[in-house]
């Protein structure tokens, strides 16, 4: 909450100025965009979640002579706005937030500024070698760096410690144990396990099963392997697990699953690390102090990084933009931001004082090590839309699992062939 308060405080001056402009009449606003002195104005667009509100505020105040305007919005709208702006080569966005998938995609389209020359130049000044190599990999594509990682995110296995202790059950380490535990706790009032399958949720959930039990999504030649024998077993397991999912699970997104946990209506399940803090918030949760996290059974859950990137089409001084981003991601800022998300600098990650302070830190390192990135090719996000649609049909019983996955494989190959992926 203090992030919000700070946000607000920083905006008061600006708000007054704009209000005055508005009061001055619509006509004035039509003609002139108010601009203060010789300041550079930079526009940033990103996703809205608490950790990013924190970093956006740091971005606004990073450099006194740079006026950063910030627009934060949900993922789907962000993608629309970025796609429309960048595909038409517009300079209306200077810096933005990307993740593994969008960075690869946008970089392949030539929409991003490669950062390697700046990294070379400012390596010392901003201690850029301190960024974890895994996080840097998320912000890179084909050997070039296109972003500075802001935070790492992954899913943890969340469970009700109090219920588990009551029944004397240990947190699961294998899928058999996971299924057994979910069955043991499942009742109409409390779901055995949350499953988040609405929209992009199914991508993350299937990613976990396919990497833990199956052979992943695609092989090195970008040929589908999700329909291998193990892949079919993975989706069969996912389907079996829905027996312990809450009613209406197909329409549950991350928000719904969070509410089920917070209201004590779910016993366990996968949860984004950035959501763990909400479990202990007094204004949201009935299970304060009752949740605990473990590395996901079997590993292979999704690991992503959100990064700041610079638009190729920005008309601002890109050297300045880079310094702005690097200043924002200082070790000090990351240490402060660690209460909301996993930092990307090794020096902060290994800070013993922080390991003490945050409950999720204990399982963080083993979870990150066991996790799996999305396949790193620019068309993955697009082709995954074709595949996850069939996986949903398999999981809900609309189509037999094997048939659904084989159909998806054929459709995926057709899609990738048309896109010229197989040369």
């Amino acid at each position: 909450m203090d992030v919000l308060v700070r946000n607000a405080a920083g905006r008061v001056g600006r708000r007054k100025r704009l209000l005055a402009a508005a009061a001055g009449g619509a006509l004035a606003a039509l003609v002139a965009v108010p601009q203060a002195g010789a300041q550079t104005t930079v526009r940033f667009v990103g996703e809205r979640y608490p950790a990013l509100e924190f970093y956006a505020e740091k971005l606004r105040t990073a450099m006194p002579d740079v006026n950063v305007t910030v627009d934060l919005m949900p993922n789907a709208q962000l993608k629309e706005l970025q796609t429309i702006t960048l595909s038409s080569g517009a300079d209306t966005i200077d810096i933005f937030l990307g993740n593994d998938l969008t960075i690869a995609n946008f970089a392949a389209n030539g929409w991003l500024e490669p950062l390697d020359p700046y990294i070379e130049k400012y390596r010392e000044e901003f201690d850029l070698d301190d960024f974890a190599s895994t996080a840097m990999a998320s912000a890179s594509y084909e050997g070039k760096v296109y972003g500075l990682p802001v935070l790492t995110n992954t899913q943890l296995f969340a469970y009700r410690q109090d219920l588990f202790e009551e029944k004397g059950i240990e947190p699961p380490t294998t899928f058999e144990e996971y299924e057994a535990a979910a069955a043991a706790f499942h009742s109409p009032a409390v779901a055995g396990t949350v499953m988040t399958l609405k929209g992009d949720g199914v991508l993350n959930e299937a990613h976990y099963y396919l990497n833990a039990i199956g052979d992943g999504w695609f092989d090195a030649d970008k040929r589908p392997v999700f329909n291998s024998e193990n892949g079919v077993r993975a989706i069969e397991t996912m389907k079996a697990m829905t027996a312990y999912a809450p009613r209406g699970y197909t329409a549950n997104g991350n928000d719904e699953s969070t509410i089920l946990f917070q209201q004590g209506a779910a016993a366990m399940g996968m949860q984004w690390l950035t959501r763990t803090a909400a479990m202990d918030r007094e204004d949201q949760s009935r299970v304060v102090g009752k949740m605990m996290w473990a590395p996901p059974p079997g590993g292979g859950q999704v690991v992503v990084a959100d990064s700041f990137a610079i638009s190729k089409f920005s008309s601002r001084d890109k050297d300045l933009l880079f310094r702005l981003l690097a200043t924002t991601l200082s070790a000090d800022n990351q240490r402060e931001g660690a209460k909301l998300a996993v930092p990307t600098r090794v020096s902060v990650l290994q800070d013993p004082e922080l390991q003490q302070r945050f409950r999720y830190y204990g399982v963080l390192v083993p979870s990150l090590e066991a996790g799996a990135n999305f396949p790193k090719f620019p068309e993955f996000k697009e082709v995954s839309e074709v595949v996850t649609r069939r996986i949903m049909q398999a999981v809900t019983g609309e189509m037999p699992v094997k048939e659904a996955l084989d159909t998806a494989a054929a459709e995926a190959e057709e899609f990738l062939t048309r896109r010229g992926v197989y040369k």
Partner: protein
Amino acid sequence: MRPGTLAQPVLLVLLTAFAVFSLTPIVWAVMISVKDPIDAFAIPPKLIFEPNFRYHYEIWFERRFLEFFANSAAIAAGTVLISVPIGTLAGYALSRIRTPAGRSFLMGLLVVRMFPHVLLVIPFFVMARAVEMIDTYPAMIAAMVALNQPFTVWLMRSFFLEIPRELDEAATIDGCNAWQVFARVVLPLARPGIVVTSLFSLLLAYNEFLFALVLTGTETKTLPVAIAEYGGEDLNYWSLSAAGAIGIMLPILAFMLFFQRHLVRGLTIGAVKG
């Protein structure tokens, strides 16, 4: 349902039932906007609680919603002031022109309106950028006027059709030219239609999301875009969304109440004819 035998109380009960159906989700949203998420999404729902208005306070005074409201109001007002007059002119003319050309034009307007907006928004953005009008009121107003013309023209035309052509003809014989017939004879009779059309034009521009997301920016951002920015990820954002949605609705509700007397029976043809 014989005339006269349908008792007023029965009508009242049925209308009340539908009003309850209409208002329940809104009342529930109002309740969510004055609760913390822990109570807002409780199982079973909490109907008795102590309201707190911190989310309403937060959006208006800490998250710049006043500024976004000014943007929304400017864009909506600009749209209505341009769209309704020119749409009324065209709607009147097209209610009187009964040639195939008139009908083709009307159909053409509708066909333009049928295209999915997700596809129009990209060329719109490209156009607005070409004339360097991204993040300005005129760009958004132009888009809204154009997008709403088919609606405005068709709706106004449907009201003009109810006004007997004999009036026009009588006035013409009296020596009125086309403009005078329209302005002095027909227009005053179309007042309920103009009120309704203005209301809908206003609503369409005021609530527009997709085009506003793309054509507005930091300086001209509208309320729907601002509210949509709090779509989820943190459940307090949902409380903010609820507070925002209630807040953005109230001015329109006030506008409606204010202009409703123009909808009342008796202003129209009957009075003239009688």
